[in-house]
């Protein structure tokens, strides 16, 4: 197993280096002049040149790349000019925010989608199958930010049940001591029940919006995979041998149907992490997607590069985790051969 992980990590190196070069070149190819943008409204051409020098943008591209690599080797991702912070600090505070949102969103989604898919597959044509179909159609056709706005309008603005969409914590709570960066877990570790509840309350609406959105691919995939497995020979054999129905469905069919579901889960997860910008916007969530988009708008190179690099590393880790999950789920899967 360790050898596999090591091999995987070494294998990922070329793609990470490729990502580094491509993002570096792409950010430089963006239209827009960061020097002119950050020199501010009262800038003269002279002032803009001064800013350009201060940002090191007067150097040639290869020179800039060498500077970038040197900084990177020291673990310095540069500074975001828009927020004035080191990119590393920004990512360290913002990635957990996005992760927390995405993880809970996926967890809720899995808890609903997988049983729903299994039930729909075992009882095709029944009311639960129709429910599954309605929910997946709704999930696909309602963009998460729209569901989010709707939830805010009804549950906060109209009814006043949900807390104000003001980010990760209500204004009268302060963040728990930093351990994982996930407020719910940090609050529990600190034994701070009130902050835990406050963090959960803030999570409620965005997590619901995300869960509705991600429910569709998961439920559909579970249903399709289950139907396929349930129609296969070994299930027929199991049925013929008179095994109990529960054992057939959960021990044999479900375990075999899990592979495509896990694949989908991985895809949805990586997609969500970067793509829930709109949900973050709606709920003033200080996540990494918002950060990247804002950097892109202001041609702020360092955060874009930092963001893409983080995402690349995250994908490598995620793919590895999914491969390991494959082995755990299905012993026949081997990577040595």
């Amino acid at each position, binding site marked *: 197993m360790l050898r596999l992980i090591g091999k995987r990590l070494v294998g990922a190196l070329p793609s990470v280096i490729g990502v580094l070069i491509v993002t570096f070149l792409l950010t430089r190819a963006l239209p827009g002049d960061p020097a002119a*943008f950050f020199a501010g409204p*009262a800038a003269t051409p002279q002032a803009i040149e001064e800013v350009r020098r201060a940002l090191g943008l007067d150097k040639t591209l290869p020179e800039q790349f060498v500077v970038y690599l040197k900084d990177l080797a020291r673990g310095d991702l540069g500074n975001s000019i828009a927020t004035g912070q080191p990119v590393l600090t920004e990512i360290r505070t913002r990635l957990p925010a996005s992760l927390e949102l995405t993880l809970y969103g996926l967890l809720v989604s899995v808890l609903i989608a997988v049983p729903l898919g299994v039930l729909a597959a075992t009882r095709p044509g029944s009311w639960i199958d129709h429910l599954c179909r309605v929910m997946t159609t709704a999930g696909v056709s309602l963009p998460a930010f729209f569901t989010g706005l709707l939830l805010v309008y009804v549950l906060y603005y109209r009814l006043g049940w949900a807390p104000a969409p003001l980010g990760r914590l209500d204004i009268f709570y302060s963040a728990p001591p930093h351990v994982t960066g996930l407020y719910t877990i940090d609050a529990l570790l600190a034994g701070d029940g009130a902050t835990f509840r406050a963090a959960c309350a803030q999570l409620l609406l965005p997590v619901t919006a995300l869960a509705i959105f991600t429910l569709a691919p998961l439920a559909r995939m579970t249903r399709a995979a289950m139907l396929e497995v349930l129609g296969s020979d070994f299930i027929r054999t199991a049925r013929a041998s008179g095994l109990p129905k529960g054992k057939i469905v959960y021990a044999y069919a479900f375990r075999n149907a899990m592979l495509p579901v896990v694949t989908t889960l991985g895809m949805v997860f990586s997609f969500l992490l970067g793509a829930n910008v709109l949900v973050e916007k709606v709920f003033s969530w200080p996540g990494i997607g918002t950060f990247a988009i804002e950097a892109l708008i202001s041609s702020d190179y360092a955060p874009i590069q930092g963001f893409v690099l983080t995402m690349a590393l995250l994908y490598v880790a995620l793919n590895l985790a999914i491969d390991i999950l494959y082995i755990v789920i299905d012993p026949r899967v081997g990577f040595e051969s």
Partner: protein
Amino acid sequence: MQRRVFLFACSAIVAAGLAVGPAAAQSRQETLLVLVENGPNSLDIHGVGTSFRSYVAAWNMYDRLVTFGRKALPDGTMTYDYSKIEPELAESYSVAPDGASITFKLRKDAKFHDGTPVTAKDVKWSYDRAVSVGGFPTFQMAAGSLTKPEQFVAVDDYTFRVDLPKKDKLSLPDMAVVVPAIFNSTLAKKNATEKDPWAMEWMKTNSAAGGAYKLDKWTPGQEITFNRNDDWKGGPLPKIKRVIIREVPSSGNRRALMERGDADISVDMPQKDAAEILAEKGSGKYLVVGVPIENSLKYIGMVTTQKPFDNVKVRQAVAHVVPYEQIYKSAIYGRGIPMALGPADAPKDASWPQPFPYKTDLAKAKQLLTEAGYPDGFETTISIDLGDATASEPEAVLLQEALGKIGIKATIEKIPGANFRNAMLQKNRPIHIASFGGWLNFPDYYFFWGYHGQNAVFNTMAYKDAKMDALIDASRYETDPAKYKQQVMGFIKMAMDEAPRIPLYQQILDVGMQKNIKGYTYWFHRQLDFRQIEKL
């Protein structure tokens, strides 16, 4: 027994809740929750790339030697008064009879937040820093003839003198803007390095201030909180004890939070929201206070160095085509003061900005265009800033449609915010919709940046005229009020006749606030000053 325990537990919980209740309510009463679209990106007003959103931190945390007075507008709204300079860190100041120097006496009891007394050497260090670090602060200082460290003299611990090359009416007001903030030089020097003698890196995220509000905590991209400095000596003690500025990117959510009463002040109001709430005339849940932004205009500019706009008749033709009324009504929902449709014999006085004498008159426009030699019109482009698309886009569409009526075929070019200034610098966008406002409220200041042949970024039309330059240069240092008025009216008249830029309207700064918020004051930097605000 068990029932008794249960009852006891219940009453204990209720009692605990009661005990907590009033305390929490009180802290809410003393706390001001402000919603913004984007927050500060630096705490250092001299920093590279410090955005205008950061002025709020610099303005409230730091003191300056002098500040502006306040006055009430006709509708009762308070605004700063640029004609009145009041002492802040300085106890008093005196201008030498020949105007060549200004001497400040500092308050002897003023202290920085860490307890260090404020002395003239801190003031000198801060002024030296502003003129030395380059970029925006240095240019802003130069606007008031403050350019070299040798001009600033710490006479003794509590006396500070500024020497001026010549008498300049902008020097003193320029010392009251956000840039010449007074830093704690002892603290700053501790955090300076050999490569970074002005502690630029450290100052980005830390405060070396002594003003009315202390930095509590800054989480970039989320919120910034301030606590009142109870030992502040620069003015009357502010009423609000704690201020929280929270970033809420969605304008719909900012409105929902205001309507539910969860927030006190909302700073970035879309014009449509402001117009709707103003239409309720105070019967709604909260109020909007709108103050015209001084010395600031939204305008249509035409590049005068290229055909066909090098011809004054073509520019005048465009000025007669613009659908002013429609723009006021449907592009900005009435949230702007019209700067066209003025009297035909304008300018009658030296006020600025004032309405230009143009109105929509297609026949006149067609005639001018024919006289200019373009009876069949021509093709051109209208460039707008995507960062300001809410208003600029409908304005451009309305203009495009109107130009079509006299045969000018225009396409619209939308330039992303990051690139707009660069595009304006190139001065080759035939028609562009942009805005410019000056911090110092003098017509000659506006014209120096916007119309003068020195060709600053803001002269987006690349307009150059020797007569106009002469008038602007003369008025800059004119001391005789009658002559000054004549010069100002002279260049305003030229701007109207020559029409390189067609003013559309003066922009309005709309701020939403709950009905119990009193004391809001408009400031030239367009950010909140917490010191005057109270919560009833």
